[in-house]
């Protein structure tokens, strides 16, 4: 692969395996995966399939047992872990906000770590809260416990975007929300990521979410990547697992329930 091509790929998994010490079965087996700049890759799979582990290998919360994860042309183990993480936005369920920080302090966290001056941080926080639909004058001074689940999730996204990182990792960001809030947040996020042109890796077990947000969908099962296709080809696939997922979608469509 030449340099230009490598530059196109923001994240590359090369024969990555991961297992816990003393465990017999690996959590991730021989994963090969490229994430191009600007795309939203959705990793889909049931609980325990290894999709969250895959995510944590990118920002070096975990280190591969074999193979390597390359971010911006450099293996994660060659990166300074702190510098690497500050270039990657991370959103988890419920936002993972610090309960003892105000929303403004949570959102301004990474810029603060990067040593921005206070004025610039304040401006950025206001801009981001506007962007995710939280009126700054109303929410900046509140604590996470004073917000609804959806509002917390918005704040979490704002925090991940604060230092304008090239890459976003999202671990079931909308999983804990009620169906209506989830649907509207998903739409807003799709709009937002198109507008900002960020590269994102999103983990979910919700096919509808995958179809709505993904440029490509990676289906994971027992630590392996079964399939990696754009949504239209995913829908047309005759893979058994894919069909099973699409079945559930059909059921919810007919029955009108989401879970």
């Amino acid at each position, binding site marked *: 692969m030449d340099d230009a091509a490598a530059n196109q790929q923001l994240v590359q998994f090369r024969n990555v395996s991961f297992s816990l010490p003393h465990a017999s079965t690996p959590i991730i087996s021989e994963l090969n995966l490229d994430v191009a700049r600007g795309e939203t890759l959705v990793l889909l799979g049931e609980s325990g399939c290894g999709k969250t582990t895959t995510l944590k290998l990118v*920002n070096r*919360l975990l280190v591969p047992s074999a193979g390597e994860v390359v971010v911006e042309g450099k293996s994660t183990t060659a990166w300074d872990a*702190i*510098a*690497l*993480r*500050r270039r*990657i936005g*991370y959103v*988890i*369920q*419920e936002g*993972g*906000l*610090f*309960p*003892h920080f105000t929303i403004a302090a949570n959102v301004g*966290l*990474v810029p603060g*770590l990067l040593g921005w001056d206070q004025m610039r941080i304040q401006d950025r926080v206001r801009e981001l809260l506007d962007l995710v639909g939280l009126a700054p004058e109303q929410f900046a001074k509140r604590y996470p416990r004073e917000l609804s689940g959806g509002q917390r999730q918005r704040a979490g996204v704002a*925090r991940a975007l604060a230092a304008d990182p090239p890459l976003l*990792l999202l671990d079931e960001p909308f999983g804990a929300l009620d169906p209506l809030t989830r649907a509207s947040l998903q739409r807003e996020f799709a709009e937002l990521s198109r507008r900002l042109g960020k590269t994102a890796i999103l983990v979910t077990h919700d096919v509808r979410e995958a179809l709505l947000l993904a440029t490509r969908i990676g289906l994971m099962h027992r630590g392996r990547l079964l399939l990696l296709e754009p949504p239209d080809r995913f829908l047309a696939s005759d893979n058994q697992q894919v069909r099973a997922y699409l079945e559930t979608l059909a059921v919810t469509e007919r029955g009108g329930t989401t879970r």
Partner: protein
Amino acid sequence: MNFWQFLQLNWPELLLLIRQHIVLVFIAIAIAVIIGVPVGILLTRHRALRGPVLGIANVMQTIPSLALFGFLIPIPFIGGIGARTALVALVLYSLLPIIRNTVTGILGVEPSVREAAVAMGMTDGQVLRQVELPLAMGVIVTGIRVATVIAVGVTTIAAAVGAGGLGVYIFRGLRQYDNNLLLAGALSAALLALLADFLLGLVERRRKLVPTAAAVIMLLICVLPLRGGSSNTDNTDNAGKVTIGSKDFTESALLAEIVAQMLEARGVLVERRFELGGNLPHEAMVSGTLDLYPEYTGTSFTAILHHKPIGDPRAVYAQVKQEYAHKFKVEVSAPLGFENTFAILVRGAEARKLNLKTISDAAPHTPKWRAGFGQDFMSRDDGYPGFSKAYGLRFADVREMDLSLTYIALSSNKVDLIAGNSTEGRIATLDLFQLADDRHYFPPYEAVYLVRQDTLARVPAIREVLDKLANSISTDDMRRLNYEIDGNRRDPKEVVREWIGGKR
């Protein structure tokens, strides 16, 4: 005297003791926090250390406080008598709750929050300072709160090593069977504990107060000790100073006060370290923190030098004098003129009814009697084991209790025979009868002063005073003086001042 009158009379002293108490607790807790929180943090980073360190801290807490003070006395630098030893013990006691709660608090932080912090690109130090410590603060403050309340209680024991504090009143109250003293000491300590609990509870609920509270504590630590925290020790020139100790009973404190006042009258600077428990005065004198204290030849002979009891007073005195000079570089003064031996006491009415004069007379009756003995008598070589064998005594029951309580127990029919002190003022007032030691079992307990040889050389006035006191206090004198304090509840300093005035 009722409690209210007692308080009106003694409030300046009580306030001083409360201040000493607070200073001791404050400093101990501050040191324990400065050590305990970082150790707790370290334990969250090194799982392997957690078991051993918490185990050691746990063991520390199970050592009875008096025993811990005892262990510390002979240790150089941190030991000795006074506030320093007390602080070391208090810190050791306070460490466990603080370390444990620091560990629990930090490990109790929501894993997703910690993970988010790491994923944001925080360094370990930033995660600790900005996320883990603030979120664990409530639990850590709870640990400090528990440690403080425990420390307020343990500090009452610190009086036994001469550190001052409210324990002075509690110990004195127990000894003199004075409920006012006991109440003033115990009630104040309890109120202090409640106050500390309340204030730290406030801090616990309002985390924002933590920095303020920390600042206040640091400020107080800087300011308080300078204002005479540990009695009259600081800011004085040590060159001509004599540190006088006493054991923890009225007579010993009286004898020490007599020397102290006579030395002060000769312009010598005196530091009083009275009411030290157990063998502390001896150990403190040998280690150099005490210069002088009153002792009894029989006690030195048996309890310190570990000889078998013998009956000849001259022989005991001569041997004690010679061995002390040789072994401890300590001089033994001439006898003061009275003995304070164990007095085997029964109720006067009982003695008259059964026509008892000697211990041998009583032997046939003892299988029906209950005996009450102090801890000291139960444990020492010349005490209960040898005594009961020498007279072939058997009792229906033997109870170990506080010595000062045995007199009341005897007069109120709770026990039938006790081993008191022959100079005890209450022997006459409670109508108790001393059985004669017809087999001369008890060694002679002549009162003397012990003084370090180097102190004698340094302060010549001591010899002058000791010569003057030789053979000048009779057993009757001593009983009367003891009764003035224990019976009439008078101030020892005043009683001694009168006595010295009368002698002149």
